[in-house]
């Protein structure tokens, strides 16, 4: 898939202004009645599939079970969440375990705009203008041993602040993982912001991982620990349902979730008439990442 650069995309405000302008032209041409019906007005506004998802949807429609299992829960329950002070520890199979404060990380690495597609395992997708930098830059700060084969990410465990962690919906703390080569891939991002602003709590503040070619749950939020390990980590979702959630969880339209199809997805845009779109292999990043899996049976290593 063609990479979408943020600069190629009309900013939200200008986009809406243009739409307003076009609509106002419509009024002049005598179609005032049609344009003013909210339903149809909305259908007209949402036909562009390369436009980033509205900030409102990205920040109010979230899967972040630490704050509750409803999509609106993370937004509703995370506003008081304290992200200062915050340190991230890098440890495990490394010569020199290190801890970094978020401030150190933000000042050592310059964040850039990275517009990536997000495909949720549930069958919906967004286009998100993240701010961030490649995880490899951070991982290169430590010298990891040759025995290290995988990287494990750990989300903060704080049931006092995270209402969802008081129930054993998942195995807390949330654990995710990548193979070293996946973790070192330039697309694998440490996210520091969204839409040019700082990262909202419901999206995984202060820092989260984003892996654009994998289903969304692979991208751990609010991480406190990165651990180099010898063995493949058991992620929280693998423990929850090993038959349904594999370690790799690469976006793949040809391999269905045991209970539902993964062939298509619904782009999130609030438009009830927007069609489903075909899900792309590796979420459209096959050119960049397919070589990581050459010779692997993707059905077996799902």
């Amino acid at each position: 898939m063609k990479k979408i650069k943020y600069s190629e995309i009309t900013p939200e405000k200008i986009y809406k202004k243009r739409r307003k302008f076009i609509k106002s032209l419509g009024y002049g041409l005598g179609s005032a009645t049609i344009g003013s019906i909210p339903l149809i007005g909305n259908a007209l506004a949402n036909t562009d599939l390369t436009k980033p998802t509205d900030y409102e949807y990205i920040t109010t429609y979230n899967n972040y079970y630490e704050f509750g299992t409803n999509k609106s829960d993370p937004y509703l329950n995370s506003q008081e969440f304290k992200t200062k002070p915050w340190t991230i520890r890098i440890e495990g199979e490394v010569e020199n375990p290190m801890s970094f404060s978020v401030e150190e990380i933000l000042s050592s690495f310059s964040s850039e705009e990275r517009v990536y597609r997000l495909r949720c395992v549930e069958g919906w997708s967004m286009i998100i203008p993240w701010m961030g930098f490649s995880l490899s830059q951070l991982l290169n700060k430590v010298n990891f041993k040759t025995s290290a084969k995988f990287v494990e990410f750990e989300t903060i465990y704080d049931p006092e602040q995270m209402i969802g962690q008081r129930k054993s919906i998942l195995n807390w703390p949330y654990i995710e993982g990548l193979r070293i080569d996946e973790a070192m891939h330039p697309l694998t991002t440490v996210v520091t912001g969204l839409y040019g602003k700082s990262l909202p709590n419901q999206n995984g503040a202060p820092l989260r991982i984003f892996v654009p070619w994998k289903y969304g749950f692979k991208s751990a939020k609010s991480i406190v620990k990165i651990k180099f390990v010898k063995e493949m980590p058991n992620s929280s979702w693998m423990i929850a349902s090993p038959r349904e959630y594999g370690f790799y969880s690469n976006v793949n339209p040809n391999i269905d979730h045991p209970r539902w199809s993964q062939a298509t997805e619904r782009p999130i845009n609030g438009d009830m008439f927007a069609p489903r779109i075909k899900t792309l292999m590796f979420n459209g990043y096959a050119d960049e990442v397919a070589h990581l899996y050459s010779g692997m049976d993707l059905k077996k290593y799902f």
Partner: protein
Amino acid sequence: MTKYFKLTVFVLSLIPLIIILVKIFFNNLGAEPIKEITNHTGEWTLLFLIFTLSMSPLKKITNMNIWISFRRMLGLFAFFYASLHMLTYTGLDYRFDLSAISKDILTKKYIFAGFTAWLLLIPLALTSSKKMIILLKHNWKKIHRLIYLTSILGVIHYIWLVKKDLTKPLIYLTIILILLMLRIRFNKNPLLLFNIKRS
């Protein structure tokens, strides 16, 4: 008097439809509108199945016959919301892509359960008139016991589609099981549940 009660129940039963129409009109369906409509109509189908199944236990408990006069209407509303649910899935979501839909029905067990539950409601809706009750005699009651199967399939459909948090579907399952168990007790011998002579 019953007439006015029935009219009230009819108007109340339209509220879920009105809610979703208002939300559609004012573009207030949130980030994933089709999912919202699908979940709304699906959940109300289950609730109307529960309402329908509650009428005869309520009659026995309160010793009032009026409950039975609502039963057909509530059952038809269950079918109505189930059909809206089906139409949302087949039409709005899958644009009547019959190959994708039939593949889903045959390979995805939650869709198979839901589709079967809806199919089983069709004969009930078709035979819901007074004429049909007279025409089918004792077979009518037999046919209409299909609602037990539909309600079980409907709630299994819900359980199978949920990703992790099963709280809500398990609440519905519990209610439905209680309503069905109440019937077994009324019939005394569970083996007689499907025996037409008992009716």
